[in-house]
């Protein structure tokens, strides 16, 4: 049975929280990291509110899980900051909504 958008986005948000923690290691960028993550978290949460009960297409769910796997590999906090912007865009593209 397909998962709902809310369940898959929940996994994405959990992974995103870990990425934010890694990005926060760059002390000079702490404020930017927290504000950037908050802005994208709000965007993802808004999509979950709008479309949360819809079934997620299997390919889209797999795409998001693949993106989660990608950010789980990151060890460099500077690259984590790049992905704090890139990851939500990839997730939203998989769902078919604009960033």
């Amino acid at each position: 049975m397909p998962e709902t958008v809310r369940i898959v986005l929940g996994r994405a948000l959990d992974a995103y929280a870990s990425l934010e923690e890694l990005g926060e290691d760059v002390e000079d960028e702490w404020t930017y990291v927290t504000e950037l993550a908050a802005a994208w978290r709000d965007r993802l949460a808004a999509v979950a509110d709008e479309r949360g009960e819809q079934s997620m297409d299997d390919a889209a769910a797999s795409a998001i899980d693949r993106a989660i796997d990608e950010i789980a590999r990151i060890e460099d906090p500077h690259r984590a900051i790049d992905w704090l912007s890139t990851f939500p865009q990839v997730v939203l593209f998989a769902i078919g909504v604009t960033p």
Partner: protein
Amino acid sequence: MRFQDAAPDARAIVYAGIQADPLVARSAALLADADHGQRLLARAVMNGETTDAVAWRATFPGLFGPAVDGATRQRSEAILAAALEVAERGDQARSQFRGAIVEALTASLLARRVPAAAIRRERRVLFDGVRAEIHPYDVTVEVADAAEAIDCKWGARGIGPDVLHQLDDARRHADDEEVALSVALVVFDARRSCDIRLARQTAPSAGIGLVTLETLDELAVGPAPALR
């Protein structure tokens, strides 16, 4: 106001080698004709950890899935291949390649509305009685009454006081001389991330055009609307 080649220093000489790499021109040409999703693919892969093409195809079913038309898939494959080549150059080189690709992409899109000969790279803008900026602008459009000075960034994090001051200085000095000069920042990243970055800057951004991943094609139409 006049334009001048920047005096090449050691960094510029090394970077010129990157700019001249055929991979930069190939990537820029592909991205100039790409849609938003394909540009996002390039951003993700060039930023990515894995260099496994199969994994990236799975990450972007909207570009590689069975419902995707042949032309879109073919272009997506070409972009994926170029982006993987960049990613495989290693951390230090890939960041130089990414910057050079954004600049070359900007020049390619500008060439759709102004003569290619008017588009120059790494140029300084000089004003009477004003000390020249040390750093050149990445891309300039040198057309009488419609000149442009553009700096390019791979990500929103590249937006900082130096680049904003440099663009603002050019804009103000051009105003003082009563000559037309549009200034803009091209960022290969989402508008949302750029807005967050800009909100924290104390350097002036009003009057500077902003082109982001979502609006790159507007470069081919006209100068970017200025921020307020």
